[in-house]
């Protein structure tokens, strides 16, 4: 018993570099050997709400997809972008992407490229999707899209005039969209979409965001200003899962290429690393508390 006590107290005074190594390994090993751990994913209600909201849209509806993340938060948000794009394209919905962060431009491009190059969907640029360029200004741009989109954007990213793009016909302000989906990692992000556009013009808004932003956004979700939310990497994995099942169920949908196989997304495979790291942290916390209890008792 004495020995055990001593061990625990020693554990409490561990050099923090030791914790660093263990955390590093707990992430690295599942990434190198993904087949060692395989845990099924269950969906939470907020992710399901997002899916149902998007699923209730009809073919030909217009969705504005706003990109507010960059390379550093790519692992969390990018899988959501891909899954959402897959879902929208599989329903024949028209997608308009707009980046509000400078790096968002690249992210939007990568996401579209990834989905289009899989050849799973019968989509064409300027007919099924259009990418708007980045403009500096954050919430000013959101306001601008809300009131007069064409005063801000005159061309798309390939310098094609908006007036020459068929799917831009009749799209002049936020009221011409049926849904706004926001992928955000900070400011401007979903709070700005609520404050400066969607609340005022009553356009349904959903969001996928980094896990740190969730507790700030949750009051908006509870009050219905944001409809459902995809929370961080787990949210991304859940949405991937739902879309994967949905695509398999609607295999002979007219918007899908029958010959191309459907691949599961990236976030799902990352979840095992995430799980192990969390478990390790909880173990740390438990040990920390035991040693804290013992040292306090000794005093």
């Amino acid at each position, binding site marked *: 018993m004495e020995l055990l006590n001593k061990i625990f107290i020693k554990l409490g005074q561990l050099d923090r*570099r030791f914790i*660093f190594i263990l*955390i*590093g390994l707990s*992430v*690295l090993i599942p*990434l*190198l050997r993904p087949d060692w751990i395989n845990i099924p994913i269950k969906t939470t209600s907020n992710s399901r709400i997002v899916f149902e909201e998007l699923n209730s849209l009809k073919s030909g509806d217009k969705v504005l997809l706003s990109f507010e993340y960059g390379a*550093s*938060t*790519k*692992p*969390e948000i990018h899988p959501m972008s891909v899954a959402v794009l897959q879902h929208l394209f599989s329903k024949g919905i028209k997608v308009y992407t707009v980046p509000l962060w*400078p790096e968002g431009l690249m992210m939007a491009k990568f996401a579209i490229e990834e989905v289009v190059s899989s050849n799973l969907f019968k989509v064409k640029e300027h007919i099924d999707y259009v990418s708007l360029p980045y403009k*500096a*200004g954050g919430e000013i741009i959101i306001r601008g899209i809300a009131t007069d989109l064409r005063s801000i954007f*005159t*061309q798309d990213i390939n310098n094609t005039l908006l007036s020459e793009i068929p799917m831009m016909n009749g799209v002049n302000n936020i009221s011409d969209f049926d849904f706004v989906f926001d992928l955000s990692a900070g400011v401007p992000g979903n709070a700005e979409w*609520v*404050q400066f556009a969607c*609340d005022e013009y009553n356009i349904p808004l959903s969001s996928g965001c*980094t*896990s*740190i932003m*969730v*507790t700030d956004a949750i*009051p908006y979700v*509870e*009050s*219905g*200003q944001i409809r459902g939310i995809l*929370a*961080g*990497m*787990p949210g991304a994995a859940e949405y991937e899962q739902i879309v994967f099942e949905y695509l398999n169920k609607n295999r002979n949908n007219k918007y899908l290429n029958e010959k191309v196989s459907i691949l599961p997304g990236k976030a799902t495979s*990352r979840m095992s*690393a*995430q799980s192990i*790291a*969390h478990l390790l*942290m909880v173990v740390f916390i438990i040990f920390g508390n035991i040693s804290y209890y013992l040292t306090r008792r000794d005093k």
Partner: protein
Amino acid sequence: MVEIIGVWCAVLLTLSIFSYLYGDNPFYKAAEHIFVGVSAGYIFTITFWDTIWPNLFGRLFPTIVQAGFDFDASYIFPLILGVFMLFRLSKKYDWLSRISIAYIVGMMAGLKFYVFLNSNLLTQIKSSAINLSGSYLSIINEFIVLVGVISGLVYFFFSKEHTGAVGKVSRIGVYFLMIKFGASFGFAVMGRISLLIGRFEELIEYSSFKYYYSTPAILVLMIIVLTYWSIKNTNINENN
């Protein structure tokens, strides 16, 4: 070739930053200083080309700078205010910059007054309305939220002593705040681990033959240098 050099640079810098976990060392110091310099240059360039050039000159000289704007004479004012800002560099006229700062401070205060009143205060008060169509459990939950919000607000009373009833209610408020902070903390753990996963995935990708095993090569090199450096350092310390 340029791509390979790029990958090796990226890996070297990534590992240099990670070396901070061992302690402050020359690799980290160098990476930190590169980061400060490069980012300052990057942001300055971006600010000029993305803001000043299109938004100011694009409106004042639309024929020369084509940014899709028409001529707008009112943009003389920000130009003047901006130039006033530059008078900071002169000893005699540096009071002019106060005018620019006064504009910004006043404008932002007026704007935030309205936005926060509308979106964060009134909308949140509005959404404390309850929906009775749900189950009994959800009504109980709504009630808990109400209690939490009110007690949380009581905690923020400044001109009232936190004793007696006010003290008790504010205690409850603190409990709700703590649960919120715990949740934020949990979410933060989740998010940060995700980012680490992203970094590691990239490092793993760069360890392949295609990039001439850049990650393991640099890692081994760095460990050798760091070991040498820390041995040398302890020697110096002992001699002192």
